[in-house]
């Protein structure tokens, strides 16, 4: 029943995409507005297909329909309800289904948003592009990653349940959907970039639209990445939250490129420059999401996240090749027509800073991408098998992050075109003074280390600069001064600074030790006292756990545990954390007592400012919402400043109307 319903959904989506592509293609070829109008309606068929598939899968999971292979492998009668529902994205095939659902959701919003312009060829090409992408993911489900395969032969009476790590924390319900909302959302800007290149309509009109979609996707991706870090911290039990694992990198690399775009697009809006570059960034962001999907789903890289063996690797790689050839071909075809007439007047200007920002983000992206695929390249070149770990990434990215923090402080106060030394000195004095004061206080309280102190100085400098901008803007406009792109952006900057400072502090000033303690014994680490009180065994429907009782600082009792799931060889540790604004005490049960009343090994990790990572994430989310808030925005077709045709050092020209 579920299998038939789900398969019907998959084929409905695939057919909807195929017919939609054909109709739109024909309409674009014949320049027939009626066909374009008809073609976009197939978006709703795709939505129906995806929704049907998801309903079929969820109902099969909830009814424990083990005749479906996916349910037999990822469901069980003992799994709690929440993790039965999240089981849909606990393995490869289901995660492709989630992808299709999210993409069809974006498609629906896009088609509805542009319904009045459906006969515009640019919208037609964009819709066609999204149809092709959607068609690919439905084809994956119809072919090699079919979530609705049935079991031949005897139907099992129970299954092993999801991977134990995926039924251990409620964040599993939020992190993947958020991440997908970000990852998949980049399809829409990509589609518009392709459409603009194909139609050759390279005016600025599509740009503001695209920026908004990118901002949305970027915001969700940011939340997804931060939630992933949080999940890893709360579940994995090693006290860390970021490991430069291929899957983490796969989500971080498109984030970097999208961040670069969100900045450089402003140069295009104000000065009409960097058009090829901006289009390339959009094309690259999407291409990199597909590459990331290949790296993590095909099994070429070993990762804590890697999905089980599946034959979808060659499919995704082929699709990646198609995307790359299309993107590169379009740029090669149209690129030289896009050349902008203006040039940057002075490196010490807003646009100069944005350019530097983009170069740094590109370098950041290259460093992370290289580290991620280097094992594959090295093996191809000389057959060596090696792995690239944290030290490479930390060493290579630290200078880039420091330079970015510096830019973050300086760029917002720079005027467009050209800045004078006087202006800079006046605007940067207070942020720099505040930063110096903070570092002096840090040193006075005994903090040492070049890298963390540099981050604190630059972080305060950048935050000071952002706060200054916000204060000025709020003084002029009241609460409206916090809304809009530039002001929301400043709030995002503050969030990023908070994360950078928390990252540096937790890395530099963390302490960790293991203590063997008998019941009643205490140990001290970094000013915290942990007292081991004893352990007990707890049985629940899906696992058997040994829980230690540990009192922290004479207050509340925490319960780090070790879980044994029935169908897993390894026991899964589950940490317990006393979180605070100042520092976190992270407890793990490293070794359970051998016999009742015996001694246990308790792992204690004390790291400062961890909670600020999550607070920083929330601040970024808030800033993104404010930046996307529809305010008194300019009409995209009437830019305030037109591209400058001749080089001049004077003030920007007055609005001159619509540019072609």
């Amino acid at each position, binding site marked *: 029943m579920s299998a038939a319903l789900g398969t019907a959904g998959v084929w409905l989506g695939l057919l909807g995409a195929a017919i939609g592509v054909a109709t739109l293609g024909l309409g674009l070829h014949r320049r027939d507005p009626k066909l374009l109008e008809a073609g976009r309606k197939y978006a709703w068929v795709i939505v129906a297909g995806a929704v049907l598939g998801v309903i079929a899968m969820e109902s099969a999971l909830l009814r424990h329909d083990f005749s479906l*292979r996916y349910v*037999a*492998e990822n469901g069980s009668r003992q799994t709690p309800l929440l993790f039965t529902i999240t089981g849909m994205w606990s393995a490869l095939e289901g995660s492709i289904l989630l992808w299709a659902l999210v993409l069809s959701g974006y498609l629906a919003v896009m088609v509805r948003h542009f319904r009045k312009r459906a006969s515009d060829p640019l919208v037609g090409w964009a819709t066609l592009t999204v149809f092709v992408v959607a068609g690919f993911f439905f084809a994956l489900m119809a072919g090699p990653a079919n979530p609705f395969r049935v*079991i*031949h*032969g*005897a139907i*099992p009476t*129970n*299954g*092993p349940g999801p991977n134990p790590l995926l039924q251990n924390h409620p964040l599993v319900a939020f992190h993947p959907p958020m991440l997908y909302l970000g990852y998949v959302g980049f399809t829409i800007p990509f589609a518009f970039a392709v459409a603009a290149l194909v139609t*050759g309509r390279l005016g600025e009109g599509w740009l503001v639209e695209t920026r908004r979609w990118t901002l949305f996707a970027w915001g969700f991706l940011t939340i997804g990445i931060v939630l992933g870090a949080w999940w890893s911290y709360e579940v994995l039990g090693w006290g860390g939250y970021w490991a430069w694992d291929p899957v983490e990198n796969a989500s971080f690399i498109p984030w970097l490129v999208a961040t670069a775009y969100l900045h450089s697009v402003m140069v295009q809006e104000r000065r009409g420059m960097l058009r*090829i570059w901006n289009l390339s960034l959009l094309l690259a962001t999407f291409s990199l999401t597909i590459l990331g999907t*290949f790296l993590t789903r*095909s*099994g*070429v*890289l*070993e990762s804590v996240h*890697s999905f089980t*063996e599946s034959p979808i*690797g*060659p499919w995704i*790689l082929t699709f*990646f*090749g198609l995307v*790359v*050839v299309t993107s*590169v*071909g379009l*740029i*090669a*075809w149209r*690129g*030289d*027509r*896009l*050349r902008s*007439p203006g040039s940057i007047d002075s490196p010490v200007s807003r646009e100069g800073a944005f350019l530097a920002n983009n170069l740094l983000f590109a370098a950041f992206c290259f460093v992370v991408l290289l580290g991620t*695929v280097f094992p*594959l*390249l090295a*093996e*191809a070149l000389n057959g060596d*098998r090696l792995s690239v770990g944290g030290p490479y990434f930390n060493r290579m990215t630290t200078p880039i992050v420091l330079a970015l923090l510096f830019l973050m402080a300086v760029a917002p106060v720079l005027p467009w075109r050209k800045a004078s030394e006087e202006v800079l000195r006046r605007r940067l004095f207070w942020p720099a003074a505040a930063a110096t004061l903070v570092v002096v206080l840090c040193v006075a309280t005994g903090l040492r280390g070049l890298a963390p102190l540099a981050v604190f100085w630059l972080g305060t400098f950048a935050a000071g600069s952002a706060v200054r901008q916000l204060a000025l803007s709020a003084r002029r406009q009241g609460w409206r001064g916090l809304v809009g792109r530039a002001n929301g952006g400043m709030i995002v900057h503050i969030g990023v600074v908070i994360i950078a400072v928390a990252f540096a502090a937790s890395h530099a000033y963390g302490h960790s030790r293991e203590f063997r303690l008998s019941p009643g014994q205490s140990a001290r680490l970094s000013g915290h006292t942990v007292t081991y009180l004893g352990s007990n065994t707890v049985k629940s429907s899906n696992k058997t756990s040994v829980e230690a009782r540990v009192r922290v600082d004479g207050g509340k009792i925490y319960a780090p545990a070790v879980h044994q799931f029935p*169908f*897993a*060889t390894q026991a899964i540790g589950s940490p317990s954390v006393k979180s605070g604004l100042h520092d976190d005490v992270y407890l793990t049960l490293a070794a359970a007592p051998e016999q009742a009343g015996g001694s246990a090994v308790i792992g204690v990790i004390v790291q400062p400012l961890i909670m600020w990572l999550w607070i920083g994430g929330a601040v970024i989310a808030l800033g993104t919402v404010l930046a996307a808030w529809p305010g008194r925005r300019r009409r995209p077709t009437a830019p305030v400043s037109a591209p400058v*045709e001749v080089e001049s050092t004077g003030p920007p020209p007055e609005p001159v109307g619509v*540019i*072609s």
Partner: protein
Amino acid sequence: MSDVDVDVAVSRSHRHTARWAAISLGVVLLLFIAVLATRKSAADKQAESPLLGKQAPSLTGTALDGSQVSLSSMHGKWVVVNFMASWCVPCQEEHPELVKFTQRHQGAGDAGVLGVIFDDTEPNVRHFFDREGGSWPVVSDPGGHTALDFGVRGPPESFLIDPNGFVVWKAIGQVNADGLEKLLSEGKARGG
């Protein structure tokens, strides 16, 4: 302003920068894709286990019928050591293939299967064999020590042991009868 004007405004030497940059980037990316396309999956690499070409770890245990079984007692025969569980769907799917394989070699007696239970109970596996057929010995592995010796991460995994007790091949995931035959004939051709 038309695009032609823009083109004229652009100095000649810069005319095709974007095109050439895009084409060179495209070539680099296609090479990169070629590298990716020729990579084996990490799981296959894992199948290049350190045990390959070495004497198989000792494997003894109590079979489901209560008799003592050991890998060394099967010397002189090709043996497929198969780690399995009744709850594992790929194991259920590969089971008929193993049945086919054992039936083909029943007469000649030159090859057989030795099952090892991985994360499952004896009654479950006994029930599974009653239902699905198969008459090869299956030993339980309390504590998972045998699985640890063989470096097994999850069922099904299979190892092909030659008549001298050396590990010649490892598979992660399902095996099939024809694939096993092919390996067997290759091994025999090498003088195994």
